[in-house]
């Protein structure tokens, strides 16, 4: 219990400490998670909309696959990505193991199904109706797609926020492919895991609180952005 109280105090100290290492950890966390969420969105939104509005063979299988992928354990994703990019792996020649790039790739794999699944769900419900309306008003394919995105923006937004939440809070994947290297690939979650291992619970809680606080700020920003439409 004292650790939690200490954590509150340390969290405030941390934020105002101007300690370069802490800021690097925080900024890297935000950068990696935002980058992976953004790139995932580019794939996930069109896929979610297409699966939600089109009928094709094996559609049910595809949907089940997406839903399953939504609950992929980060460690497994981390491990698989690691095996691909490791020195002996097929993409070892890229030399990206233990870099932020590797962390972003692993998180894209984690986040894309989440955004896809949520967008698919919204599209399944309303997509048919929106498409029908677009057709009767004379919209072409591109205009229909834009209309779908615009009308489903709340679902898309929910997907992005959930995806970002997953990215910033997961530790398994970034730990394995990033390696938690100090000043290079250490992010908030891997720092927390490490501090826990070292028995420094108060500091772990402090970083956890900073993480929570940042998630709140970023979610608020996204929310405002979405409301201001």
């Amino acid at each position, binding site marked *: 219990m*004292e650790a939690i109280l200490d954590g509150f105090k340390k969290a405030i100290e941390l934020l105002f400490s101007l300690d370069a290492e802490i800021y690097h950890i925080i900024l890297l966390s935000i950068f990696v998670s935002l980058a992976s969420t953004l790139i995932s969105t580019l794939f996930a939104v069109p896929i979610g909309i297409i699966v939600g509005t089109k009928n094709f063979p094996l559609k049910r299988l595809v949907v089940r696959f997406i839903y399953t992928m939504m609950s992929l354990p980060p460690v497994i994703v981390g491990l698989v990505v690691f095996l691909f990019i490791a020195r002996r792996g097929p993409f070892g020649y890229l030399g990206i193991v233990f870099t932020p790039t590797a962390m972003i790739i692993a998180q894209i794999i984690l986040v894309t199904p989440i955004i896809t699944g949520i967008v698919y769900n919204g599209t399944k419900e309303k997509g048919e109706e929106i498409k029908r309306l677009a057709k009767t008003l004379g919209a072409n394919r591109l205009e229909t797609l834009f209309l779908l995105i615009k009308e489903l923006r709340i679902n898309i937004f929910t997907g992005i926020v959930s995806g970002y939440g997953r990215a910033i809070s997961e530790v398994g994947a970034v730990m394995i492919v990033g390696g938690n290297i*100090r000043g290079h690939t250490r992010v908030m979650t891997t720092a927390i895991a490490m501090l826990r291992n070292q028995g420094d619970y108060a500091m772990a809680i402090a970083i956890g609180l900073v993480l929570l606080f940042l998630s709140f700020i970023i979610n608020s920003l996204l929310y405002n952005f979405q409301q201001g439409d």
Partner: protein
Amino acid sequence: MFFKKSKALSITVFMLILMLIFVGCSQPQEAAAPEAPAEETVSEENTTPEIENKTLLLSTTTSTENSGLLDAILPVFTRDTGIEVMVVAVGTGQALQMGRDGDADVLLVHAKASEEDFVAEGHGIERFEVMYNDFVLLGPLDDPADVAANAPNDILEALKLVYENEANFVSRGDDSGTHKMELSLWDELDLAPSGSWYAEAGQSMGAVLQMTDELLGYTLTDRATYLSMRTDLDLKIVTEGDNKLFNQYGIIAVNPDKNDKINAPAADLFIQWMLSDKGQQLIGEFGKDTFGDSLFIPNAK
């Protein structure tokens, strides 16, 4: 507050037991069958009937766990005494912290100074030396800093070579016993390693060995973890046998005054067993079959 913590602990232990039951159920022909008769023999031959609580929570370091020593000797202890040992493998820092918080019954760690402080502060009853292993410096097969040629038995000279060549080096960076050992060596050299060649991983020994292998770098490791993983690694020992590289393990029973959930009788029994001829012999034999050599040298007084 102690009450809450020990409640959390007992819930954890309860869940662990539940999980064990599940594991047992899922493999009825393998696990369940030998377990049942083992329990029976225990109840007949039990030499210490006064111990009611049959579970002991051992907090130890990941390097001990990774070596496989505990998997080899703990079943024998359980057969001898009927006490199940739950192993929580964490960093030395957290292992000691768990002791301080009363979340473990007994500690098996390797950071002498911290252990002595731990006992001096009243968190533990007494520290016993139980065994030692040694550290080695690993490097890539092509050994770019030429350590093996120039400093096969001199760890300070070896690290200096790595430093001067800025060869990739992966540090545990996690406040573990191994990390403390490494830092004390840099200290002795009066060097402060930094830069892109020096990666502080903040992870377990096993993970650090994998990373070192990936980065084709050097790292300081305990011999046990290295031997247990060496077939998967393109790394070789470049420096060994320096007196500075010996690593003493201590065993400490957590002070039972902390809370009423601490299983002091079982902790005492475990320590006695580890220090007994039988325990010491088992420790010494471990690894001979697989690696052709002992991983730990017993040295109880």
